[in-house]
């Protein structure tokens, strides 16, 4: 093993325990705030993993979206709601063992798939083809930007409109209706009389 591979292995050996510790912490902390912070640790370590695997755009997207938006949202929600620190007794019912069985089967499946892919790609023919693709020379971000503005222009602009509509729609149920009441009272004078059928209905 030459120096660069050694450094690579060392970095991976640093990041992976971080992910493990973070995920165990997420499950087993009793205080939910602590567990949400360790979820943030997991996301950050995953994005460092992406950096180590030379996928810089995905790493940045992971930091921005998962850590910066989703995790912050989770922490806000936990801090706003009034959480009493409760400690449940550790009852190992049937659900525990079912989940344990299902997760271990999934884990074994993933390990088997990874071994098979590893064997497939470490044969020499495929390695030379893989290197021919020249993946390490590409600039991912530039490519993505280029495609976004050329081939995928319509979905891109549509997504920006979607964001506008989503913002308006999210604020609409949540805001105060004082403005609406004033305007409605102004208009009431021009209404035709007999409000009783309309008031009776809570149907709208």
């Amino acid at each position, binding site marked *: 093993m030459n120096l660069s591979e050694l450094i690579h292995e060392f970095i991976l050996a640093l990041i992976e325990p971080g992910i493990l510790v973070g995920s165990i912490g997420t499950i087993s902390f009793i205080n939910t705030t602590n567990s949400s912070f360790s979820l943030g640790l997991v996301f950050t370590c995953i994005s460092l993993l992406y950096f180590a695997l030379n996928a810089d755009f995905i790493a940045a997207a992971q930091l921005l979206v998962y850590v910066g938006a989703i995790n912050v949202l989770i922490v806000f929600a936990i801090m706003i709601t009034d959480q009493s620190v409760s400690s449940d007794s550790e009852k190992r019912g049937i659900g525990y063992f079912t989940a344990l069985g299902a997760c271990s089967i999934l884990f074994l499946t993933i390990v088997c798939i990874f071994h098979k892919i590893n064997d497939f790609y470490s044969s020499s023919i495929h390695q030379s083809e893989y290197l021919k693709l020249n993946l390490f020379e590409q600039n991912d971000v530039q490519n993505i930007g280029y495609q976004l503005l050329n081939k995928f222009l319509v979905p891109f602009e549509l997504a920006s409109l979607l964001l506008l*509509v989503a913002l308006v729609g999210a604020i609409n149920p949540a805001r105060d209706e004082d*403005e609406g009441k004033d305007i409605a009272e102004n208009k009431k004078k021009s209404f035709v009389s007999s409000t009783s*059928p309309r008031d009776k209905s809570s*149907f709208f």
Partner: protein
Amino acid sequence: MNDINSFLSRLNSIINFSTILPKIILIVGLITIVITDLVNKGKNANFLYKIFLISTLVSMGILFYQLISVIAFEDLYTNNTFNNLFRFFILICSFISVLLSVDYVLCSKISLVEFPLFKISAGLGGMILSCATNLITIYVSLEFLALSSCFLSGYTKRDIRSNEASMKFLLMSGASSSSLLNDFSLLYGFSDGQVQLDNIIDKILFSQYIPIICISAAFILAGTAFKLSLFPFHQWTPDVYEGSPTPVVAFFSVTSKVAALCLFTRLFRLIFPYLSNEWHIVVELLAISSMILGNLIVVTQRSFKRMLAYSSISQIGYVMIGILAADLENGYASMITYRFIYIFMNLGTFARITPFSLRTGSDNIKDYAGLYMKDPVLTFSLVLCLLSLGGIPPLSGFFGKLYLFWHGWKAGLYLSVTVALVTSVISIFYYLKIIKLMLTKTTNLVDTLKTYENQKSLVSSIISTKLKSSVEMAMILCALASTLSGLFMDPIIKITRNTFF
């Protein structure tokens, strides 16, 4: 003279070669509505609706013009007759449903601006969905349509049922989008990284990957069947229809179904031509069960909107026969014609329910008893639309169904057509029951009808005609369309004929 000619020809070429011009007009309308409301601080409601109507009308005009002339090809979305017809339908739906909703929104004292905003955005999403051939565009526009419809259905936020309806709609659309996304990722992976639908078919090696293709077909079916409310995925429909405000139900009962039909047809036709036997059987099974279920449960309903929800479930069953019966010479003519007629029938029925519920505040069918004495215009037009939904001869619903079933029989779907005929008879029974209730004179009127008043419109009419309000205009338009379309059946069929791709 020469200048005018060259100017006109340049205008001609611009309109012809810009396939996204109708959508750009809708987007401009959307932005104008937001800015106008910001500037006016919520004072001038009519102007906003006028903007919406004008932009929809201009889009429709341009689209109609494009339908007639030959149009260029673009990469992200093609422009054949199929797409254009569906876009046209969606614009018609938006237009008519906004006519329905003006009075309702002002009367129920909910905030005014966002309503046309959401309607335009849902219409826009539907239009882009109709002509998308790119997996990503399909997904983003589907989300756009679903999100706007969800906000629309939760619009009257003080009503608990509206909140429930919007939650159910959100969950349903989330589930269907995730299923579709799963499928799209399968297709993307197995076609070696292609996103365009045409390229996907070229690249997938069908002989090699049959189990994967079957799985992806199942996912697409689940995803689109949610939006179409086919049989096992129909559970959200009655609750959402009953809870949402009535003009909103009118809008998305036609718009999202039309867009979802377009998506369904395109995906199944393009991606799985080799599997046509398998998915034909499955879709036939779903169609039969939707028809049976919709028409049987509709008999027990007491709320008008729930009844219309179940009847729309059964109508989708009929339309599925039209999809299955598509062949080379006729294209999807039967399905598109029936859809066209169905838009008018359905919107017409909702156009009658909306003023009725505004004036009496009730949705029970029993409260419609003896309506003939109080408001003959409403009764008569509702009778026409209900009969057209059922499929009684001189009205256009009959011609649509006839064409549909005839095509189905010709294509060999004997079981489906038989079941469809039987369930049509059941639905006619139910519609006639309502009509009888309305038309008979009862000695003691129901309480709600005693205070029924034939009120004038609450806002000044948007378009200065002699009619009293925009709802009445929509009513009359739909009534005329659902009766007289039967006479114009032949030209309609001829237009919808070359839609096979």
